[in-house]
């Protein structure tokens, strides 16, 4: 048991206690958390920082505004309704088209305006928010995800998770929903996580649960060796999030839109550690390399370069000065 702990430490695997004590407690100030917990605030910040996010069509803040919903949605063919304070994809309804008086959801169900108003009321009353506090409902652009992922996902929206420490992208994975995860992009719910080569943006090994898999279980398409389009742009986007929120250690969820390119879906002040399993690599060595060089890494370009040089597949973060 102790030898396993030693081997994990030698391989630089970051544990929860160390993540909390040495990274989150020290680098993430508590008062900054609302910036990432409330998606409306996150969107505002992103817009000011020039970071692309799905365009917000409308915001329902109080019950009275639910009546204005039809006016807000007139002329829209597809959009997403989501709670501003929700987590893990709960309460999100994706509308893909209109059929007479009905809206068609991504799951194929038809809902009328009354049902839609009821759903929005539920969001406002806090059913999907953390701790049940009153919430807001966001109506936003529906991401047309890049065709590269079409064969690699079962419903849902695949996204790229990048851990960013002091503005330097540290490690990344792409999360692919499966039938098992019910279209959700969370690894512990059964989504596939595939590590990404930080230098080139090609997927490495993939894991489902704790097992290494080669192909998507629902489509049979290989998940390793897939090139993420526009990888440098993704890294650039992720690196900018530090200035945006001020959180030293954060997880950035990015979606790839067919037309508009990478967009930030949400930020996370306590990103999970499963990314290490997906990459079959530890975080500690990379985080320490960044701390050693934090004085030098000023501009976004510097930080992205640093990540691509030292954190790529086969590179050794210990080689960084």
């Amino acid at each position, binding site marked *: 048991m102790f030898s396993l702990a030693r081997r994990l430490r030698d*391989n630089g*695997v970051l544990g929860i*206690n*160390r993540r909390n004590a*040495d990274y989150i407690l020290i680098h993430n100030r508590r008062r900054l958390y609302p910036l990432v917990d409330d998606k409306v605030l996150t969107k505002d910040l992103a817009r000011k920082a020039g970071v692309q996010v799905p365009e917000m069509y409308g915001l329902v803040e109080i019950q009275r505004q639910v009546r204005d919903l039809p006016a807000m949605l007139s002329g829209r063919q597809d959009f997403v309704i989501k709670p501003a304070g929700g987590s893990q994809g709960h309460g999100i309804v994706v509308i893909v088209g209109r059929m007479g008086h009905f809206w068609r959801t991504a799951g194929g169900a038809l809902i009328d305006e009354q049902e839609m108003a009821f759903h929005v009321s539920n969001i406002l009353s806090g059913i999907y928010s953390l701790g049940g506090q009153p919430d807001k409902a966001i109506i936003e652009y529906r991401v047309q995800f890049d065709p590269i992922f079409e064969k690699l996902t079962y419903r849902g929206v695949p996204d790229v998770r990048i851990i960013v420490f002091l503005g330097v992208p540290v490690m990344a994975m792409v999360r692919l929903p499966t039938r098992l995860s019910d279209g959700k992009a969370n690894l512990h719910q059964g989504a596939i996580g595939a590590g990404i080569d930080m230098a080139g943006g090609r997927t490495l090994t993939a894991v489902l649960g704790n097992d290494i898999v080669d192909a998507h279980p629902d489509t049979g398409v290989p998940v390793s060796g897939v090139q993420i389009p526009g990888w440098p742009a993704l890294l650039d986007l992720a690196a900018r999030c530090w200035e945006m929120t001020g959180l030293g250690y954060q997880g950035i969820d990015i979606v790839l839109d067919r037309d508009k390119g990478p967009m930030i879906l949400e930020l996370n002040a306590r990103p999970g550690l499963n990314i*290490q399993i997906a990459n079959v690599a530890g975080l500690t060595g990379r985080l320490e390399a960044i701390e050693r060089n934090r004085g030098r890494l000023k501009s976004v370009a510097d930080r992205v370069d640093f990540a691509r040089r030292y954190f790529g597949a086969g590179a050794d973060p210990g080689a960084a000065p």
Partner: protein
Amino acid sequence: MGRRHLYILALVLTLIGGGLFLYKWLVLEFPVTPGENTAIWRIETRLQFVAGGGPAKVTLQIPQNSPQFTVISQNFISPGFGYTTATERGNRSATFSLANASGEKTIYYRAVVHRARLSERLTAPAQREPPVPPTRYRDAELAAARAIVAAAVRQAADNETLVKLIFRRLREAAPDAEARLLLGADPSLRKTAEVGVELLRLAGLPTRTAHGLHVVPDRQNARFDHWIEFYAGGGWRPYDPRADAFAVPADTLPWWHGPEPFVELTGGGDLTSDVSVRQAFEFTLRAALVRTREIERTLIEFSTLGLPLQTQAVYQVLLVVPVGIFLLVVLRNVVGIRTFGTFMPVLIALAFRQTELLWGIVLFCIVLACGLGVRFYLEQLKLLLVPRLASVVIVVILIMSGLSMLSHKLGFERGLSVALFPIVILSMTIERMSIVWDERGPKEAFIQAGGSLTAAALCYLVMHIPLVKHIAFVFPETLLIVLAATLLLGRYAGYRLVELSRFHALGGDR
């Protein structure tokens, strides 16, 4: 800087805690193991009443030396009251009085009693035969009493059989109109004893009622036991009507005799009395007697043992909680067990103290399962958080009372203890479990429920070790060491045990 500061703080706390512990152990000779075979009891009587504004007077019966027990010391805490003690008809009583009393008043009477040794028991002085007072009975009652006595006297060979015969008539009084007339409906033990005394006096035997207390290791709200004593051969012989035996249990402390009430109040109302008994550590007395230096006396008085008994009972529970909390920190941050809430398992463990482990777990699971079912049903109604939680609390109370009634009917008295579970804790557990169920699936919910129960059971087992309870109560300063260890764990950055299996795949050699 942060780390060194922490280490120094932990060191200082450990030194203070350890130093005080060693001083109390080695110099003041406080015992480090729970004492056994101690024959000293501290008895505390608390009287509470609302004074009426004018003069108030409270008369309280107090115990005196008897062949079985010696009263070593006693004191009265009665702020503002003047008190006198008197010996009257073989009883000792204390009278507290105040000329102008208003508002709620509390009076404490404390005594330390000691089980007398056998030799002292044998040398009780002989007493002259007391006179028999005239009977209280009149008319029909007198006729009924005479009938019973006459029948008994005809059959009795001696005084002992007379006592037995009369009490048998009283015990088997159901169809007997004569005894029923005297006893009234559903007589208490005390009433039975008093009627028996009257009948025996009518037969010419000097008899009296006696009231005493069982001295058990720990008892709140102690109840008095009643028996009778009759004069035989130069002394009083006891007869316990309940056991039908000419002896009272050896652990009974005789308190007073005769028809007087335990406590009597004039000039006020809402009188409540509460007697608690607790086996004390013998050393407290010895230490208090032997120690002469002022500082040492003060230290003994300022220990938890100097608190009133009822408060001591609270602190006996409270002071082991930090031990449970420390264990929980280890379980969560070093082992990695996932639980609902942070300290919920400790609170559940406290509830287990009343129900005992196995029953606690069984009852907890039953209430949790029922509550969860209701919670899922309510989920469909899409209620807001606060009314939903409130509904769950109401349902939990109903489930608990239902369980109690059911188990009582089925004869499981243990089931009654479900009432001792803190309902709010149960409701919060149900709510949290259902949220985890929704958000992360049933598997995660069961993992966390299992983790909570495991942690609660472990906390209970540790908090239940007599040595741990004793050390935490007699040496509360050792909790500073627990605090130091907890602070150090606050900077523990190593792996959790469960992470070793989670990251197993990353443990290969490079």
